[in-house]
Structure formats: structure tokens, C-alpha cells
């Protein structure tokens, strides 16, 4: 009935009420849990606020000067102090425990997650699917399947945020960070960079497309670039000369990489660590820090010679490397010009165009 109010105001009201939302759509498996914690926190906040307001307003009315001209001096009450220390503490501890459980849920991925890789750079997101599909500022995921994002920045701090999924993780230069989620509702959801990263920080946004499994397969098939990440990685493995030392033989200069991903390895200083994505990336860029027990520290560093995309390719490759068969085949067909020597500290492998390796890739 916009006769009584101006049409402009009416339009505004209509627009507002139809779009009015207090929280983003719950589009992931964890979102309801996050919202539950949120409602609990709001609940205790409202109670706390109401208590304080009631006390302040109530006392102000009852003990205002006209009604109570003489104040009664009261020193304090240990009992009251204890009460209003213990009750808030208890409530905050509940928040702590609940929040911690939720945190571990969000940051500890399940083992059967679909891997995807994210490289953030000023001012765009590059997303890579294992099958070789590349996206910019968009992320297609299937619903109903856990997806794990392994992320790294090429330059400054960014932060990958999907409000509808209630997940967010910083994307840092120099090390991988991961986050996982399971999308539950098909649709298009905002993707934001939430860590200030320079001029076009507010343009570093995109969309997450959650699709039914069928739609997702269709999309995968239609957007593949031809070679998967692992295939690219295999190519790099040969062209950078990795296969010269990591042959898989017992007498090789470098450790066997087949099935190494996820296993426990012993370092030269005696400690044990898990060979995860970060470890692999670090071993390529800072091999001197991660020398494996029983091997000489002769691996040259590839810092500055591989991009983050290339590192992701190599990591994907090693992740799925189960036998060294093809490694040894590429060795036989590749020319490696004696550039990796046992005694030469400080020399670097020279990139080779691996004639043989490129034949392998076109399946």
C-alpha cells in the first residue's frame, strides 16, 4: 500500500525484506555446527547483557537520589565475587571447549578428501584440480564429498574465505596451509580474500560453485587442459633432473620417492617426521634442512627455479607415485649431462628438455 509512504521508501523496504539475511546460507557440512555455536554465544551474550542492563537500570530506578537520599556504604562480598567469577569462567570454558572441538573439525581433514590446490597472488586466486583443470577466481566442487584445499601464496599474505561454508584459512608465502569442507547444497557462493593484500584486495573475490556429482563430472570433463597436475609433475621431475638421483634403486644418491608420501621418514639428525605436502615442498626448496638419514646432503636447492604451480605439480606427482618404473624408463631415455655430482655442493641441476619424458605424457 504505497499510497501512504513514498514509493522510494516502499521500494527500499521491499528490497530490504526480501534480501534480508542475518547469516549466510548453510552450504557445508560444518556450517550448521558453526551456526549452533554462534547461537549459543549469542544466547549467553543476551543473557549477560540482560543481566547487566537489568542491574544497572533496575538499581538506577530503585536507588535514584529522590528515592534513596542516603547511600549505604558496602565494602564488598567475597561470595558475590566468587559467584560472578566462577559463572562467567564456566560459561567461557564451555565456549572454549566447544570452539576448540569445532576448530579441530574444520582444520583436520578426513583421509578420503579430494585434493585441490590454491595459489593466491595479488590479486587473483588460481585453483588447480588434480586432473589438470585450472580456474581463476572460481572453484567448482562436488557436493557430498570432502574437498581439501592445499594453499600457498606467491607473494604476500592472503586469506581464502568461503562464508557460506564457514571456512577460512590464511594463505601464506613460503608454506602450505590447508582447509577442508564438504559442500552440501548446490549453488553459487561467495569466495573472498580476507587478508589485506594491497591495492585490489577487494577485487580478489570469486565464486564457489557447488555442483551435484554428475554436473561436477561434466564440468571436469569439459574443462580439462589436457594433462593432469601429476603428469605435469612427472614432466618436471625429468626435466629438472630429479630422476638422476631419485632413481628408486638402493644405491641411488637420493631417497626412493615411491610411496613416500604420508610415510614417516627419519631425518639425518635422528628425528622422525611425516612426509606431507609441506615436507615435500620444503625438501625441494630447502633440501639442506631436511636431509634424510643415510643420505649425503648433496641435493641442490631449486629456490627461484620453480614456481608455486610447478611445486604443486611435483607434489601431486610424488603423492601418486607408487612405483619407480617410469622413473627408470625416463632415465634411460634422458640425457643428463653430469651436472649433479656427488661432491659438488652448490652446483645446480640444469633444466633439461626431456625428450623421452614428453612421449610418456600423451596417453
Amino acid at each position: 500500500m504505497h499510497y501512504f509512504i513514498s514509493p522510494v521508501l516502499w521500494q527500499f523496504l521491499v528490497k530490504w525484506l526480501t534480501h534480508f539475511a542475518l547469516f549466510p546460507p548453510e552450504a557445508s557440512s560444518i556450517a550448521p555446527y558453526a551456526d549452533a555455536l554462534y547461537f549459543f554465544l549469542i544466547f549467553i551474550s543476551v543473557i549477560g547483557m540482560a543481566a547487566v542492563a537489568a542491574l544497572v537500570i533496575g538499581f538506577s530506578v530503585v536507588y535514584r537520589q529522590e528515592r534513596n537520599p542516603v547511600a549505604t556504604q558496602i565494602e564488598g562480598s567475597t561470595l558475590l565475587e566468587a559467584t560472578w567469577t566462577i559463572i562467567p569462567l564456566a560459561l567461557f570454558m564451555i565456549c572454549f571447549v566447544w570452539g576448540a572441538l569445532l576448530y579441530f573439525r574444520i582444520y583436520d581433514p578426513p583421509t578420503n578428501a579430494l585434493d585441490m590446490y590454491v595459489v593466491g597472488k595479488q590479486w587473483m586466486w588460481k585453483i588447480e584440480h588434480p586432473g589438470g583443470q585450472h580456474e581463476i577466481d572460481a572453484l567448482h566442487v562436488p557436493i557430498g564429498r570432502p574437498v581439501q584445499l592445499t594453499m600457498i601464496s606467491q607473494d604476500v599474505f592472503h586469506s581464502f574465505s568461503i562464508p557460506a561454508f564457514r571456512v577460512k584459512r590464511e594463505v601464506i608465502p613460503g608454506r602450505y596451509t590447508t582447509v577442508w569442507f564438504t559442500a552440501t547444497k548446490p549453488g553459487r557462493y561467495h569466495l573472498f580474500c580476507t587478508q589485506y593484500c594491497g591495492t585490489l584486495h577487494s577485487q580478489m573475490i570469486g565464486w564457489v560453485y557447488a555442483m551435484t556429482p554428475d554436473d561436477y563430472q561434466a564440468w571436469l570433463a569439459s574443462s580439462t587442459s589436457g594433462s593432469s597436475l601429476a603428469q605435469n609433475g612427472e614432466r618436471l621431475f625429468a626435466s629438472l633432473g630429479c630422476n638422476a638421483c631419485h632413481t628408486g634403486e638402493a644405491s641411488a644418491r637420493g631417497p626412493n620417492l615411491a610411496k613416500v608420501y604420508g610415510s614417516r621418514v627419519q631425518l639425518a639428525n635422528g628425528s622422525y617426521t611425516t612426509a606431507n605436502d609441506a615436507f615435500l615442498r620444503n625438501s625441494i626448496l630447502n633440501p639442506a634442512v631436511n636431509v634424510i638419514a643415510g643420505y649425503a646432503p648433496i641435493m641442490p636447492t631449486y629456490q627461484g627455479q620453480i614456481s608455486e604451480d610447478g611445486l604443486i605439480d611435483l607434489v601431486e606427482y610424488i603423492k601418486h607415485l607408487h612405483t619407480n618404473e617410469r622413473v627408470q624408463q625416463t632415465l634411460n631415455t634422458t640425457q643428463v649431462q653430469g651436472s649433479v655430482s656427488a661432491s659438488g655442493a652448490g652446483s645446480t641441476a640444469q633444466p633439461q628438455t626431456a625428450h623421452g619424458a614428453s612421449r610418456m605424457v600423451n596417453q
Partner: protein
Amino acid sequence: MSTIVSLPDQSTAKLPKHTYLNNEYGLKSWLLTGDHKRIAILYLISITFFFFIGGAMAGLIRLELLTPQSDLVAADTYNKLFTMHGIIMIFLFLVPSVPATIGNFLIPIMVGAKDLAFPKINLLSWYLYIVGGCLILWALIAGGVDTGWTFTTPLSTHYLNTHVITAGMAIFVAGFSSIFTGLNFIVTIHRMRAPGMTWFRLPLFVWSHYAASILMVLGTPVLAITLVLVILERTIGIGVFDPTKGGDPLLFQHLFWFYSHPAVYIMILPGMGVISEVISTFSRKRVFGYTAVAFSSVAIAVFGFFVWAHHMFIMGVSNYSALVFSLLTMLVAVPSAIKIFNWAATLYKGSITFETPMLYAFGFMGLFTIGGLTGVFLGSLGMDIHLTETYFVVAHFHFVMVGGMLMAFLAGVHFWWPKITGRMYPEGLSKLAAGTTFIGFILTFFPQFIVGYLGMPRRYAAYPPEFQVLNVLSTAGASVLGIGYLLPILYLTWSLKYGKIAGNNPWQATGLEWQIQSPPLTENFVETPVIDYEAYDYEWLANKTKHEVQTVG
């Protein structure tokens, strides 16, 4: 509304003949003063100046955010606006706000001393503040800084070509201003108390400043060295934060937040001290649970040093360290809650009046409670994942800093205005300003909680259109808020000449400062006071005023 204001007979009242204001004349007597009261006034003028610059930037930010596109200012300019807004408001306004103005003025008087322990260092503090301020203005005029007030590396070290070094130096210098003020306060409180003034007879205002000073003194140097390292990395290229040289950008985060978290307690504790004084005076009652409130201040200071990584929960710290910091964050929330309840209990069986300082104090209690509770939201790990780096955080810290601290500052300025100037401010206008501020504040910042949960990131010049309505509400509130802050400038200045003469103790309050003339003598006390009564002793005060003859003039 009834009132406890008791002014001398205005038809014959005159200001005292000798005060710290007319003791000496001339610019040099102000710029080379050692008098803590004059230095407090110098600070008051300076921080007000910087507040309005920072406020103007806030205004521009909110204007830009009226529309979803980045159409009022270019993205780079917007980035500079929020950076400078943060730097100016935090380092040049909030950190010195209560300590350097009201604290400087009152701490010596409240402990019964003639001045702070080191008057020359006090003056040096102000000059360092001015140098820091000038450097920031220089950075601003020369083109601005756009690192964000958090100077995150490697953005600030390698990816920006704005005036990062100038801004870093400005904060470095201003930091030393803060350190020296804190040092002065600690030594004064330890060593210059009048005979009989034991620790537990001190007003709670002094306790809060003591706690804040510990933080200033121990935390600020870490910020200083961090800025030095950033400047070295930017100039000569050392690589302590640079991953390509083996450094770790996360190290910067740890070092930066090691100061910057205690910094927020540096900012709020003095404000809490003001609230203790105001609530007690306008309920005519001792603060409920004096010991608890005093120890809470110290507890906040101590715990405040151990929670810094709650700014880094999603940055790749290990799950276990995240656990520890979240737990400690919950612990640091408890003393603040204790204080709020103690203040509320002070009202019980009091005799309450509603002068402007009391209205601001009520505003503080409400808004700080909301702000503090939303801090619990953020301290809860899993919730923080969704909420961090969004407008929820922006709303949270504005609630505690502006709704809390700035209201406490205004409460303090109004409460001690008669003591500092000898004149009363106009009560009607001041109540209007308080109400305007309160309403404007809620309208500005409450929508930001909602838009934050919806996912709107902070530091965005442009945003998705569905967030526009809430942003428009927020900007509307900001205009109201601006009026609320402009009004005091106008009427307080007016009151300097036309305000009613206040007399010694217009509020009938306890405390040493209210037993001396308004404005005070340069040496504060005619003779050294000897204290043999407790703080907030209203019975003693009632007795005294029965016998006392008030003379003014």
C-alpha cells in the same frame, strides 16, 4: 532530574587568585613547563587535533562504503584512509587518551605528590608524541601509507612503495612517548605517595593506570624493535621476515602482536579507572569490592601478555598452540567481567544521580559489555575461523575502543573538567551530546556485527551489493556519531569563558583532587597531605562538609 552538583554562590564566586594556569604566562612557560597539569593540557589539545583527523578519515571511509562500488575514492586511496585512520586513532589518540591527559593531571594529586617523579621526562614524552604526530602528518601529506595499521609483512616490506618507513618511524617515536609516560607513572606511584597513602587507600583510577603502565613499559619496546626490523628489511634488505631468504613472515606476526595485544589493554585500563571514579561519585558510595577491582586491573595486565596469538588462529599456528591461546583468552575475559559486576553492585543501595559523566559511564557499561562478550566469540577457536578478518572483528573492537574507551574518556573529561578549568560545562547540552553519541554509536557499529557474520571482509573498498543496506545504516549512524563528538568541542570551549564557577568540589566527591582548589595550584598542595582514611570514604566526607566553610575567590 535531581543532582548532587553543589556550586558556590555564582553571584559572588570568582576563580581562585593563584592557579597553575595563571602562575606563569607566555608560550615558553607552556612549551618548557615541568608542571604535569600543563603538560596534560598540551596533550589534551594535541590528541583532540589528531582525533579529528582520524575521525575525518573515518567519515570518508563510511562515505565510500555507502555504495558497493569503489566510486568515491580509488582503491589505493581507500587503503590509505583505513591505514591512517587506524594508526592515528590507536597510537595518537587512544593510547595516550586517558593516561597522558587525565592521568598526567591527576596521578600526582591522587597520590598526594607535587608532581610526577620525572617532570622533564614527562615533557619529553609530549615532545616525542608531537614528533611522532608530525611524522605521521608528513607521511599523510607526502602521499600516505597503505599497509594497514598492522604492517603485515611481506606486504609492508616488499610489495608497497608508499611511505612505510616514515610511518614506522612515527610509531617508533610515539611508542617511546608511551614508554616514558608509563615509566613516570610507575615510579610516581611507588615512590611519591604522601605519608599514610598506602596501596589500598589509592583510588582505583591509580590502580588502573599502574596496570596500564606496566603494559606500556614492557610491551611497547617489542613493537619498537619489530618496526626497526621492518625498516631494515625495507631499506637494506635483511631477510628476517622474507621467505625467499629463509626468513619467516609469521615471526613478524608474533612479534607485532606481542605488543599489539597488550596495547588494547593499555588503551582500556585507564578508561576503566575513570569509570570506577565516576560510578562511585554519582552513587555516593564506595566502589563495591575495591580489592577485587584493583586486582582485576593487574590480572588483566598480566594475562594480557599471554594471549597475543589469538590474532593468528588461522595463520598456520599449530592446533595445540591455538588451544593454549584460546584458553588464556577466555581467562583474560574474566577480570573484565568481574569489574562490570562490581560496578553494577556499586549502584546497589546507592544514591544515584544522572549527571553527564554518569550517563557516559552507563554507556560504557553497556557497550563495553557487548564488545567484551563478542571478544569471547572471537576467542572461541572454531567461531573465530568464520568471524576473523570480517566486519565482526571491526565491530568488536570499535565497541570496546569507541563504545568503551572513548566514552570513558569523555566521562573523565566531563567529570574532571571543573577541576582542570575551574568551570562547569553546560549540563543540558552535554547530556544531549552523550545521548547522541550513544545512539549514533549503536547505529554505526551494530549492523557491522551482522554484516560481518554474513561474511563481508574488512578493508574492502568495494563489496557485494547484498551488503549495502547494512552499510548504509552504518554510515547513517556515523553521521549522528560525528555530531555527538563535535558538540563537546563546542560547549567545552564555550565553558572556558562562560561556564559556571565550579568551586573545590562540585560533585561532593571523595579523593584528594577534590579537596584542593579548582583549578589547582602549581604545586597542588599547600602542605603535604597526611592520609589516615580509606579511599571513597563518604562518611568522612559528610562529616567534613558539615564543618567546612567554602570560600572561592
